[in-house]
């Protein structure tokens, strides 16, 4: 009988194995699929709140104290006669009785409120030794130690208080720690504590302000510091302190326009108190002054004097602002003399001393005594408030001394600081241009324009660079564009006219100067117009223009000399000589006038420009 062919065993085994594996894989895949489409599938959030659980203290706690009570703690160190020390150091140390602890706490509070700080400290120390978890005792102890200038001890106490306290108090403790570090000028640590404090008390404006200040003093970048000041202001818009501090910060970091905006936007808050008003006006004066708005500065100074008329303030301040008045009135020598009166009395007020020195240096700068400027500035001790303005003035002084290399070095160093760099970049651009470093100049100017694209000075500088380093025709087009954009900007028109004149487009230049003098016949514009008219041989017009100028300023030597030449041009020898004589009266050494007279006397035809 034919035997049926058997499947080899090996294949049977493999077939069974494969069947088992397939079954297992099917189950696995089905399982995975099912888990994916599980009925209650969830999605994962991209962000999640990190906030802590808000805890509330049970009403059985009797040792809480209000914020106002804490704030009211002031201290001196003399022992009170009427407070019994028995309860504080007494013989009941053995029993940690809750009522007794409560009583001790009350005693400590009373002692602190009455000014017996050391007694209060001792009692709190006893409480925390007996009951280490006593939150308020630990916090109050830390606060008093800080007030007692024992910050090192305060820090360890407050660290412990933080570990045992609930969410509600952690913010305050961190703020106290930050304050300790601020006092010790450890600004980085202070900033970190303030940052953490804000996480617990985001609505606490004071902490935001102190945080901003610590960031400032720690050299944080301008934008960050400013945003934190803004938050402090937003949280308490009627509080002048953060506004004034922000303005002072902006002054320090050379954002004078920003400073002005800060002060003018908040003038309601800043006029809330006399003190605030005074500081506001002082800062406003500086703001106008630094932006070259002397008239506004003068007016503000007047307001300051009116506001402080009936106030008692220090003699130094009075003298200082008087000196400022003289400075604004261009009476630099008088200003200097006033400031020199202040010398011995400012040793205990470094800020005042620095401001005085700075103003003194500005006076010297105006009177072109550059060496004295540098001497005064170098003698000022390092002061965060004024450092950067001093550096800027130093750079400007070097520039005025035509030591452009040195000036540029100063500006480059300043540029690396955490300040508002637009103005510095602008100054650096101008200085680099003087040194024919066109690329560097262009780079700095780009930076300035990036910060303030609407700043006409910057835009004008860009056009001037184009004229100087690039193409004159392009520069002229730029001037035209600028003039269209800012039709009332005389500076732009003036520069444009100058450029046209340099390009030998005298008619166009003349038209612009005429436009300028029609609006406001300023000396320089009249003089430039007259010059063009003279060169075009339009002596009559030149004479008319110069006559207008001299009516404003009869002592204008150049204008009078040009007038003399214009008369010469009209062959009116008498008037020519007359004017030349007047020139010599104003300036006996005027070679041009002398030459004019000698030529006229010999051969009027031989005179040339």
């Amino acid at each position: 009988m034919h035997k049926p062919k058997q499947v080899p065993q090996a294949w049977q085994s493999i077939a069974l194995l494969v069947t088992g594996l397939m079954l297992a894989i099917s189950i696995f895949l089905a399982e995975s699929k099912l888990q994916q489409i599980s009925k209650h599938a969830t999605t994962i959030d991209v962000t999640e709140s990190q906030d802590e659980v808000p805890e509330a203290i049970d009403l059985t706690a009797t040792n809480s104290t209000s914020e106002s009570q804490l704030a009211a703690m002031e201290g001196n160190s003399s022992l009170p006669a009427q407070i019994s020390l028995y309860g504080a150091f007494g013989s009941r140390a053995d029993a940690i009785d809750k009522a007794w602890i409560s009583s001790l706490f009350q005693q400590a509070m009373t002692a602190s409120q009455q000014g017996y700080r050391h007694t209060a400290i001792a009692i709190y120390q006893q409480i925390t030794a007996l009951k280490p978890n006593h939150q308020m005792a630990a916090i109050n102890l830390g606060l008093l130690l800080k007030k007692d200038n024992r910050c090192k001890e305060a820090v360890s106490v407050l660290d412990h208080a933080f570990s045992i306290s609930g969410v509600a108090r952690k913010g305050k403790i961190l703020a106290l720690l930050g304050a300790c570090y601020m006092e010790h000028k450890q600004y980085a640590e202070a900033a970190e504590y303030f940052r953490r404090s804000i996480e617990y008390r985001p609505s606490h404006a004071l902490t935001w302000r102190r945080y901003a200040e610590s960031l400032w003093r720690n050299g944080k970048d301008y934008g960050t510091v400013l945003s934190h000041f803004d938050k402090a202001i937003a949280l308490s818009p009627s509080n002048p302190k953060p506004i004034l501090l922000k303005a002072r910060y902006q002054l320090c970091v050379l954002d004078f326009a920003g400073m002005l905006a800060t002060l003018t936007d908040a003038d309601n808050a800043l006029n809330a108190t006399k003190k605030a008003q005074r500081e506001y006006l002082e800062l406003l004066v500086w703001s106008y002054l630094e932006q070259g708005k002397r008239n506004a500065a003068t007016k503000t100074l007047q307001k300051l004097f009116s506001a402080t008329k009936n106030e008692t303030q220090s003699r130094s301040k009075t003298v200082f602002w008087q000196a400022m008045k003289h400075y604004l009135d261009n009476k630099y020598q008088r200003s200097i003399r006033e400031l020199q009166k202040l010398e011995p009395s400012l040793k205990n007020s470094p800020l005042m001393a620095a401001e005085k020195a700075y103003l003194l240096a500005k006076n010297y700068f105006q009177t072109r005594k550059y060496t004295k400027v540098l001497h005064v500035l170098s003698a000022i001790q390092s002061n965060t408030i004024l450092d950067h303005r001093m550096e800027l003035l130093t750079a400007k002084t070097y520039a005025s001394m035509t030591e452009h290399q040195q000036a540029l070095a100063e500006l480059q160093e300043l540029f690396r600081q955490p300040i508002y760099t637009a103005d510095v970049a602008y100054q650096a651009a101008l200085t680099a241009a003087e040194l024919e470093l066109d690329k560097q100049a262009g780079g700095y100017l780009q930076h300035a324009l990036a910060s303030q694209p609407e700043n006409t000075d910057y835009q004008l500088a860009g056009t001037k660079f184009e004229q100087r380093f690039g193409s004159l025709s392009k520069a002229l087009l730029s001037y035209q564009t600028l003039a269209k954009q800012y039709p009332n900007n005389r500076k732009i028109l003036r520069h444009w006219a100058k450029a046209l004149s340099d390009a030998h487009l005298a008619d166009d230049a003349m038209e612009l100067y005429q436009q300028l003098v029609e609006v406001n016949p300023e000396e320089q514009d009249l003089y430039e117009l007259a010059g063009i008219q003279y060169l075009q041989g339009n002596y009559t017009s030149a004479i008319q223009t110069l006559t207008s100028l001299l009516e404003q300023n009869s002592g204008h030597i150049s204008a009078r000399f040009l007038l003399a030449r214009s008369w010469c041009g009209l062959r009116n020898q008498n008037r020519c000589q007359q004017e030349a004589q007047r020139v010599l009266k104003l300036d006996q050494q005027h070679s041009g006038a002398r030459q004019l007279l000698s030529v006229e006397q010999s051969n009027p035809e031989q005179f040339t420009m």
Partner: protein
Amino acid sequence: MSTFGFDSRWLSKFAFLVRLDLVLVVVFGVLFYLQMLQKPDLLKALLPEQVYSFSFSAFFEPDDGEINIHTYIPVNNAHQLRLHEETSNQLAWEINKDSTGRKVHWSGDNQATNVQYTVYVATQTDQYNIDEQLMIPDRYDESLESYLQESPVIQVNHPEIVTLWNSIKPANTHNTVAVLKTIYDYTYRQLESAPFKGTTDALTALRLGIASCNGKSRLFVALARLNNLPARLVGGVILDENTKRTSHQWVEVFIEDHWVPFGPTNGYFASLPAHYLRLYQGDQALIRHTSNINFDFQFDIKADIVPPAYYQDLTNIAVSETNLSVLLSDLGLSAKTISIILLLPACALLITFLRNVIGCKTFGIFMPMLIAAACLFSGLSKGLLSFLVLLSLAWLVHLILDKMRLLKTARLAIVVTCITVFFLLGLWLFDGKLKSEFGMLSVFPVVIIAFIAERIHQITSEQNWKECILTGIGTLVTVCLCYLTMNSVLLQGVFSLIPETYLLVFAAQIYIGRWSGLRISELFRFKSLLQGNSNQVLGINGRNRDYVYLQNEKKWLLLATDKLATKQSLARHQVPVPKTIAIFKNYSDLSRAGDILSRQNSMVLKPNAGSQGKGILVIRQRLDSIFLNAGGKRWSTDQLTQHIKEIINGTFSQNGEADTAYLEPVIQQHAQLQDIADFGLSDIRIIVSKGQPLCAMLRIPTKESSGKANLHQGAIGVAIDISTGITSGAQYKSRSVQVHPDTNAPLLDIQIPYWPQIVAMASRCYDAIPLGYLGVDICLDRTSGPLVLEVNGRPGLEIQNVRQRGFHEEFLTLRTSRHETATKAPAIVEGVASYA
């Protein structure tokens, strides 16, 4: 014998068992079909559920007075369902409910330092569709008045908030959706998010332009109330697997009898995702506690996928009333325990498949399943790591105890004790840091480990490292697969809702149990034999099912393990066996031990129930009263007597019970075999089927096998032609060899002395011990000739590799031509008779 491998007697008696597996499959099919007819959505119900374990733990220092702690705990509503909750008892507690939510309040003045609340919740995503035409009502019921009011932190009518609204309001400020979308857009998109930990009121959030969830929510509520929309804060926790301390807040706005949720922090408009757990409503503090107790807390959240049937309430589909998960859950069993119970049969099937089809070796047949069950509580990696650590410890203890030569039971008990103590020590040292559950089943491994360690110790003491490693790997793999099986939510769901699936499991187990094919591991083991006709090769399955179970009765198998009884039976049937000099059954026999020993110059002392050569002492010579063993060690009479005593005590017996010691003379190996290898006793293994010798091999020890004739330990197997007694091929470590690797003696074409006698002896062994499938081990003594050392009821299959040929079909051929065997037998028997 049918091709299905069973005797016709069985067929007649149990005809219905012919294909029981098929019957079961058919029954399953019918039942399943009927169930599907009744419940067409049954398969949908297999989708697993996502549930969360949420735990709140509070830590504090005891105070002098009473401590009070309150916290909100979940309520049941459309969004979430509380499945199971428990509260710790360190402090007295009570649960209350009010308009803000459900709270647990602990209180007490004892020295407790922590409390805990745990809840198991199932949640779902809520999505609301608001009618675009819906207008904001002018009036509401009095009960909603409070949700329109201003508060110190929700400054509804503050000029800055009013100004803000005026700057962002939509064209139609009466349209509900338009207004809410505007508010939502502002608070979600324009307000930056910040990780503030403290409370932020609405005005601060507006002024800062940045806020955390509570600030954004408060501003949202303020703007909603400004527009006459009742709104309230809602608080809870986001359920992400984590240990954390953060909570979350969002908003609900009352629209047409619904409190519709909005999440301005994470961007949920009119929806609440499933992983948000709602705890309270209103501007509440989540936790309140007594002050000055150094209070701390944390949330622990775990997500889990559970089978759909586990929580009946969750299933919206009407499923089978038969729900095994619910049945077991009602008994108070935990989810993990239920899954173990439900899936044990599946694991057993898996193990059967791994052993019988793949050939995976493990320590203990079903022990890996128990280990996997324990790992279910602790986690697989933690469980396996602790298992390995404890196993290593147990093995070390075995190693130490081995030197003390303790009895087996006591030895195992000591190991169990050591492991338990170590386990407790570990718990004590890592108190609180171990976040593992230890269910009842975690205890079992302590016992399991003791047994496994003993097995490992046994293997390693034989220096069979390869087997140890392979078995270890097999165990590990099996544990992991069993763990995955027990963790399978799909299978849990299937067995819960479709219990007739167990019929399939039965059917599969029967099918595999009936299968006598080669295991996958045997495909590799016998790979050189499979190139021809693989059906020739006999595997373990075939050997056990088709031969051992059918032909070897249990009583004869038991007899074969008793060496003395075997010798006696063989001797009665004139089968030469080594002489027995003396037998020591109990202590009273020891009195003559000294006298007997003193009369021997050489001897072999053996335990009757020993294995693997344990307890065997070979004395080679005597010098006065000192005996020297094979290794040169000196033994006094007293020491030998002591050794006998230990044998009697059962120190070397397989089952640990009292044993019998006996003395035999040292076998002086035949010169021919001695020349091949003189450092051990070679033997001849003959496979006998129903008295008919089938095949034979010579097993020669090597240095590697430490003088033992054990192929697995490195001895050489030499095939012998059954009819001629001439060696034809030799295998050493799966390689063909022609000379002995240690002595270079040739191995092939050797005529085994006394071959006809040997064959006759082997045949007669069947008469003495009628095992239908028998392995006879014979040695050659130079004086006495061939002697049967022992018989084996389950002889190994390696002889096939040695012969380079399977013998499966030879068995079949043999059975069909028994009449030929009968005519050959007398010649062999005569040869034996003449020898005797």
